[in-house]
């Protein structure tokens, strides 16, 4: 495998970067620099545009690289990720999208703060949004790193580190220059590219097996060395009960986490009405569902065509299964077809990472500026500085994400995303649902709900085998592992709901009937929505 496909991939990727930078410059040419513009892109995107952007934000490197990798290594257990990622959208559609669009302005904290004592609630919700976003960013950075080390052959540490730094720098440019408008267009372009790439590869896989799914599954099972066990659950999460509970934990986190992801919530503010928000979710369910069905084919395809040994040999966590599959489907390492297809897929995966990273950074910088800074700043500071603060925050978040991305580079991307989902489901979802639906929810309950989900979930991760105590952990040398599960969701999500309830029933302030009436009327009718 010599330099051809690397050069081509780099060229294609440079073209994508050039196009996105052009978009960024173009959409920001006569920007007002207002908060509406920066956080919500003017709120005038159509449902279809926003549906593509939502799916672009959601179909991250974790899905394209991580899930296919897991399927190619562990068969059916990887498929469970795809199911969880999709079903989660029903929670978003039924309980969150329209109501959040009607009640909020830019961030998750807006919805909660509308009913509560603003300052403490805003600080709590802002903090948890930033934490979730940073975790999510780390996953994307790791994906970028493993992709490039494959692309440049060998596992040159320097190249990998510089990629992570480069991705971080680019995302800061997109976000701080273009705000939501540029980010949305980048997502749309990326969603089209990603779905197009997945369609081409899926068709090629199916052609390889003459359209015979049965043959594909059988070949995958045979090649995997596990036989029919490959097509049933249990290879990764079977065996002892720790692994099984770990899987249930992950399943819960996946289905409940999406509705608490700040970068998904902030997308609903880019359309004019709740109705448009609903229709954009329906669009994205269609797109995302189609995409995950294709990743399943690609994952089994990678197992059947490339084989688990080759996948594992390239990246122990399986993150590079799809590019390897593309190389093989195009005709092998020395053929033109293989080179081109490999380069295209690698460039698309890169574009995916860049776009998702930009979306998440924007959401977290909004949380910093709109929630944290606005609540913590001194009164005399000029309010128009908010967008400027958001720009600076995006730089800070970029630096943190780069640093953590370099540290966590050997973990599976889909698994890292699972952690981010668990924290989102524990810290953000309880407070959001209680605020929207529970009449006697109070400020104290809201603050407790956020910290009661956030602190345990982070603590459990720190004490889990992910961080210490096993050969694969971040710090294999030390052992302070006291919690057996890798994903904290099973414990921390119920805890978030429980602590929020506890804070409410023990609080001395009476629930505010009028504010609950206001939230409920606004949520369901859209009265007074911006």
């Amino acid at each position, binding site marked *: 495998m010599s330099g051809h496909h690397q050069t081509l991939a780099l060229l294609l990727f440079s073209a994508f970067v050039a196009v996105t930078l052009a978009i960024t410059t173009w959409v920001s040419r006569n920007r*007002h620099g*207002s*908060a*509406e513009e920066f956080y919500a892109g*003017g*709120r*005038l995107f159509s*449902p279809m545009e926003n549906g593509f952007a939502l799916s672009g934000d959601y179909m991250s490197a974790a899905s394209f690289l991580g899930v296919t990798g897991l399927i190619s290594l562990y068969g*059916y257990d990887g498929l*469970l990720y795809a*199911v*969880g990622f*999709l*079903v989660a959208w*029903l929670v978003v*559609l039924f*309980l969150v999208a329209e109501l959040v669009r009607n009640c*909020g*302005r830019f961030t998750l904290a*807006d919805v909660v703060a*509308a009913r509560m004592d*603003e300052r403490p609630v805003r600080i709590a919700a802002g903090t948890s949004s930033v934490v979730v976003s940073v975790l999510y960013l780390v996953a994307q950075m790791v994906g970028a790193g493993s992709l490039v080390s494959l692309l440049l052959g060998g596992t040159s540490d320097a190249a990998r580190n510089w990629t992570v730094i480069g991705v971080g720098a680019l995302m800061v440019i997109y976000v701080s220059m273009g705000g939501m408008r540029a980010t949305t267009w980048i997502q749309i372009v990326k969603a089209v590219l990603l779905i197009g790439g997945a369609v081409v590869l899926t068709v090629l896989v199916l052609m390889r097996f003459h359209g015979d*799914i*049965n043959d594909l*599954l059988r070949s995958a099972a045979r090649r995997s060395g596990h036989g*029919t066990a490959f*097509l*049933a*659950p*249990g290879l990764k999460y079977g065996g002892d009960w720790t692994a*099984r*509970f770990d*899987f*249930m934990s992950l399943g819960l986190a996946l*289905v409940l986490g999406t509705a608490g992801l700040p970068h998904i919530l902030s997308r609903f503010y880019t359309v*004019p*009405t709740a*109705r*448009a928000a*609903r229709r954009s979710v*329906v*669009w994205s*369910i*269609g797109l995302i*569902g189609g995409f*995950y069905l294709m990743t399943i084919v690609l994952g089994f395809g990678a197992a059947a065509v490339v084989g688990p040994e080759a996948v594992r040999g390239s990246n122990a966590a399986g993150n590079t299964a799809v590019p390897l599959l593309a190389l093989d489907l195009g005709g092998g390492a020395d053929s033109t077809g293989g080179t081109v297809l490999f380069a295209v897929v690698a460039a698309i995966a890169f574009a995916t990472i860049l776009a998702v990273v930009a979306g998440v950074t924007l959401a977290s910088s909004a949380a910093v500026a*709109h929630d944290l800074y*606005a609540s913590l700043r001194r009164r005399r500071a000029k*309010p*128009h500085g908010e967008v400027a603060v958001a720009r600076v925050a995006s730089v800070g978040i970029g630096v943190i994400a780069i640093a953590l991305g370099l540290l966590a580079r050997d973990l599976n991307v889909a698994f890292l995303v699972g952690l981010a989902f668990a924290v989102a489901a524990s810290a953000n979802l309880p407070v959001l649902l209680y605020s929207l639906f529970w009449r006697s929810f109070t400020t104290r309950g809201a603050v407790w709900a956020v910290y009661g989900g956030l602190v345990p979930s982070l603590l459990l991760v720190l004490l889990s085998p992910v961080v210490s105590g096993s050969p694969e952990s971040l710090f294999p040398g030390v052992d302070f592992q006291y919690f057996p599960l890798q994903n904290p969701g099973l414990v921390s999500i119920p805890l978030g709901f429980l602590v929020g309830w506890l804070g409410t029933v023990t609080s001395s302030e009476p629930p505010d*009937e*009028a504010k609950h*009436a206001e*939230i409920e*009327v*606004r949520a*369901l*009718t859209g*009265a*007074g929505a911006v």
Partner: protein
Amino acid sequence: MDKHDGGDTGEVRFDDPWYDALASGWGELDGTGALAPTVPAARSEHEGRTGGAAHVYLEVQRSAAFREVRARYRRFVIPAVAVFFPWYVGYVVTATTAPGFMARPVAGAVNVALLAGLGQFLTTFLFAWAYARHARLRRDRAALELRWDTQEMTRNARGGER
């Protein structure tokens, strides 16, 4: 799903006047919005007045029209959540606790597990379609009327303050 959505498009502009209202008035709002972005709209409205508009929301909440909209929303969402969530959790729990059952072959290489997984995809699509259809036919028009009424009432209660 797309087909349904496409059919929807023509209708939206028709009975959703907000769509245009927002578009035309936005430029001006933008300029002022930039100056006070630190508090959400709901809050800043509250600071100035304690009685008027807050009372309007209570009044609307008690009205028969609003209770009907809320009931329609709940009548769909509560049963739907009660079906899809246990179905998903049941799927995950079965996959982890009864892999033997899930591995049972059905046809060729396809086993119970694969069928259940595809079933999850299918039910998700169906639920999304049904929800969108229900909201469009049973809720949207009533909600929009309530929205205008409520905003009218708030404006009056505030006494032309804005």
